[in-house]
């Protein structure tokens, strides 16, 4: 009867559970926002010497780093003990589009080898994809004041107009990347 746990969870299970996580954090006196950790890590690393933006008492943010430790453990536990296999059942049209760009067996692994595999990161192009992707994520999320958790989930739940503008921005950027830049890269 627990078989469903080992299958990928449908959206109507996952979405409400994410709302629950947001509420657990609100009830502990905190907020759901994962990108703040990046700023905290800069601050711990001494970035306050270069910008006042990183001069704050990061000890108040330790709880958020602890959440991150839990998230790493959760990812480990779910992938090791709660999953029958690692396939991702994406739409056949998505598969076809990836195959046309040279991706082998899209969706057979949890993430594409062509981006995250050793062969990919040993090449200059592959390394640049990960580095540029990370730079855009880190720069953009702090510029926008939040990421998917802080704006799309927390902010929209509180009907904040700034978060709606940010989410529109997320989608403009995501669509440009998906339809114009990724086809150029691969």
């Amino acid at each position, binding site marked *: 009867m627990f078989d469903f746990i080992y299958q990928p969870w449908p959206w109507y299970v*996952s979405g409400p559970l994410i709302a629950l996580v947001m509420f657990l954090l609100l009830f502990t006196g905190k907020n759901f926002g994962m990108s703040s950790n990046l700023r905290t890590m800069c601050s711990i690393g001494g970035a306050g010497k270069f910008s006042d933006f990183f001069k704050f008492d990061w000890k108040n943010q330790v709880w958020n780093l602890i959440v991150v430790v839990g998230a790493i453990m959760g*990812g480990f536990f779910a992938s090791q003990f709660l999953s029958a296999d690692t396939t991702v059942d994406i739409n056949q*049209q998505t598969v076809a589009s990836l195959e046309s760009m040279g991706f082998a067996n899209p969706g057979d692994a949890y*993430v594409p080898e062509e981006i995250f595999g050793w062969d990919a990161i040993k090449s200059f192009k592959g390394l640049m994809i990960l580095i540029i992707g990370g730079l855009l*994520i880190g720069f953009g999320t*702090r510029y926008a004041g939040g990421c998917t958790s802080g704006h799309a989930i927390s902010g929209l*739940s509180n009907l904040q107009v700034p978060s709606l503008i940010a989410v529109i921005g997320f989608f403009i950027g995501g669509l*440009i990347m*998906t339809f114009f830049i990724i086809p150029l890269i691969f």
Partner: protein
Amino acid sequence: MKYFKFIAIGFVFGIIMYKSQAVSWFRIYEMFRFESFHMYGIIGSAVILGIGMVQLIKRKKLKNIHGEEIQFTPKMKSVPRYLIGGLIFGLGWALAGACPGPLYVLLGTGTWSILIVLAAAILGTFLYGVLRDKLPH
């Protein structure tokens, strides 16, 4: 022990994110191509439930475990900041197929190359901190 609850919340979050496949590059690519309802269903149902719960908290003036009323700090009013910053983030989200939370979840799954993305994301945040006075907000 006061941190145990945060480990537990993070742990649950990590499991949900992995099992929902929201941390899979393929799901993000599929979402931006509008070829599946999956990601929209996850975010949409979280937000719809979230709106109801936030309204409940505000109307009933619910308190957190420290006995304080739960507060929501409004975000600063601006358009360029959210639109430009959001657009830059969106480019990275679609390229790396992960936003900040999933970076950590993927690390737990043993996708070691995500460490490169994470290190670059920390550097990106640092660059924002250094350049922020020169950017439109």
